[in-house]
C-alpha cells in the first residue's frame, strides 16, 4: 500500500539515509527501531515530504512518484491520505481541541461542518478526550495533547498514519495513555508506521519490525522473530542494550 524505494538523504553532505527500501501493507503496524541518529525520523519525514529526499521513489495509493521531482499538488494528494503524529504534538495553539480536529476536515477537505462535527466527536471519544473539547492545547498535559494529536491525525480516515516517536517527549507516567490509544488503533486494523524507542510496544503490538542503523535497514522481520531470534549481531546488541533499560 505504501512503498518507498532507494531513499537517499544527506544533511550538509553527511548522509542520513543511504538507500532505504521500505514497505507497508494494508492493516500492518510497522515499528521502526534503532539507535539515535540512525535516520528513523528522517525516513518518516521524507515519506511525508517534510524533508525532500535527494533520491528515491514512493508508491502510494496506486500512484508512483519520484520523490525529488514530485509536484506540490501531488505532495498534497499524498498528504491527504496520510496522518502524521509528531514527537512534540504540534497541536495548533490558537485553536481549541475541537477546532484542531475539525480543521483538517473542514478547511482542507471541505467537509460539511455537521458531518465533520460528528467525526470529530467520534475520534475524540476514541482517544478519551471528549471532556476537553473546549480547551486549548496549552491547558492540557503532554499525554492529553498527544491523544488529541492522534485524534486529529485519524479524523480524515487516512490510509496510513506515521508516528514519529510519539511518546519520547512525555513523562514515563503519561506514555501509557498514549500507547493504549495506539494499541486500540492497531487492533482496529489501522495501518501504522511507528518510529519508537518503546520496545514493549514494538514487540507486542507491531506486526513487523524494522531495525535501522546508520541510514540503512539492518534487519527486518516479524516482531516476534526479530525480538526472539535476531539474525544480525548488531540487532542483538541493540536489543540487549535496550532490554537492560526496561
Amino acid at each position, binding site marked *: 500500500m505504501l512503498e518507498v524505494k532507494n531513499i537517499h538523504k544527506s544533511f550538509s553532505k553527511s548522509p542520513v539515509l543511504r538507500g532505504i527500501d521500505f514497505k507497508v501493507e494494508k492493516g500492518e503496524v510497522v515499528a521502526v527501531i534503532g539507535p539515535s541518529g540512525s535516520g528513523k525520523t528522517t525516513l518518516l519525514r521524507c515519506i*511525508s515530504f*517534510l524533508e525532500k529526499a535527494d533520491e528515491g521513489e514512493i508508491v502510494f495509493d496506486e500512484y508512483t512518484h519520484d520523490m525529488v521531482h514530485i509536484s*506540490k499538488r501531488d505532495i*498534497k494528494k499524498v*498528504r*491527504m491520505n*496520510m*496522518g*502524521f503524529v*509528531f514527537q*512534540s504534538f*504540534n*497541536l*495548533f*495553539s*490558537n*485553536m*481549541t481541541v*475541537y477546532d484542531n480536529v475539525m*480543521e*483538517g476536515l473542514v*478547511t*482542507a*477537505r471541505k467537509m460539511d*461542518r*455537521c*458531518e465533520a*462535527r*460528528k467525526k470529530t*466527536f467520534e475520534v475524540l471519544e476514541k482517544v478519551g478526550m*471528549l*471532556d*476537553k*473539547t*473546549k*480547551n*486549548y492545547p*496549552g*491547558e492540557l498535559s503532554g499525554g492529553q495533547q498527544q491523544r488529541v*494529536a492522534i485524534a*486529529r*491525525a485519524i479524523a*480524515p480516515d487516512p490510509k496510513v498514519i506515521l508516528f514519529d516517536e510519539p511518546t519520547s517527549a512525555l513523562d514515563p507516567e503519561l506514555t501509557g495513555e498514549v500507547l493504549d490509544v495506539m494499541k486500540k488503533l492497531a487492533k482496529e486494523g489501522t495501518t501504522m508506521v511507528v518510529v519508537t524507542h518503546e520496545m514493549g510496544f514494538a514487540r507486542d503490538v507491531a506486526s513487523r519490525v524494522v531495525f535501522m542503523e546508520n541510514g540503512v535497514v539492518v534487519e527486518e522481520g516479524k516482531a516476534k522473530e526479530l525480538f526472539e531470534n535476531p539474525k544480525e549481531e548488531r540487532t542483538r546488541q541493540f536489543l540487549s542494550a535496550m532490554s537492560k533499560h526496561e
Partner: protein
Amino acid sequence: MSDRLVDILVTSFMRILIPGIKVTIPLTLLSFLLSLVIGLLLALVQVANIKGLKEFARFYIWIFRGTPLIVQLFIIFFGLPSIGITLDAFPAAVLAFGMNLGAYNAEVFRSAIMAIPKGQLEAAYMIGLNYPQAMARVILPQSFPVAFPNLFNNLISLLKDTSLAASITVIELFTSAQQIAARTYEPFALYCEAALIYLIFSTALTWLQNWIEKKLVWKSGENDKDKDADCGCGRNKAMVG
C-alpha cells in the same frame, strides 16, 4: 504662577486638545492602519519567499528605514508637486507616516511569523492545508499576539511623531500649541501643556494595550459558545465540555 498665565493655560487647553482629538488622533490611526497593511504585505512576501517581491520588500525597507522621516514627509508634500502629484497636507502626512512605519512594522510582522515553531506549519501541511491556508488559519493568528506589543510600541511612537506634520502645515495638536505660544509669548508653559496632552493620549493607549494583551491569551472560557451546536448530530451539549 501669575493669574494671566493660569488663564492662558486654562483657555488654551481646549484649543490644543480639540485639534489633538480632531486631527492628531485620526492622523495617527489612519497612518497606523496604512502601516499595518504595508507591513503585513512586506512581511508575507518575504516569508513566502516570492521572487522579485521579496527583493522589492527589502529595498522598500532599506529606503524607508534608512532616511529621516521628516525628509520623506517633505519629499511627499513639497517634492511630489514638481512631478505633477499634488496632495493636501493631511493625506500627504498619512502617506508619509504610513509608508515609513510600514517598513518598521514589516520587520515586526516578519520576526513574529518567524517566532512560530516550525512544527505548526508542518502539522498544518500534514492535515492537508496548503501554504495560504496554513498562513491564514494557523501561523498568522499565532503571530499576531507575538507582534502585538511591538506594533503597539510603534503606535505610541507614531502618535508623538505626528507632531512632525506641523512642518507641512497640518493644523494638529502641536501646531495649535505653537500658534498660541507665538501669540502669548509663553512658549515654556504652552509646550509643556502640549507635552501633557500627548502624555494623556499615550497613557490612554498604554491602558488599551494592557487591556488587549490580556485578551490575547488562548484560554477556554466559561461561556464559550458552541458554533456547531445546531447541527443536531445526536450529541448533546453536555458532551462539548
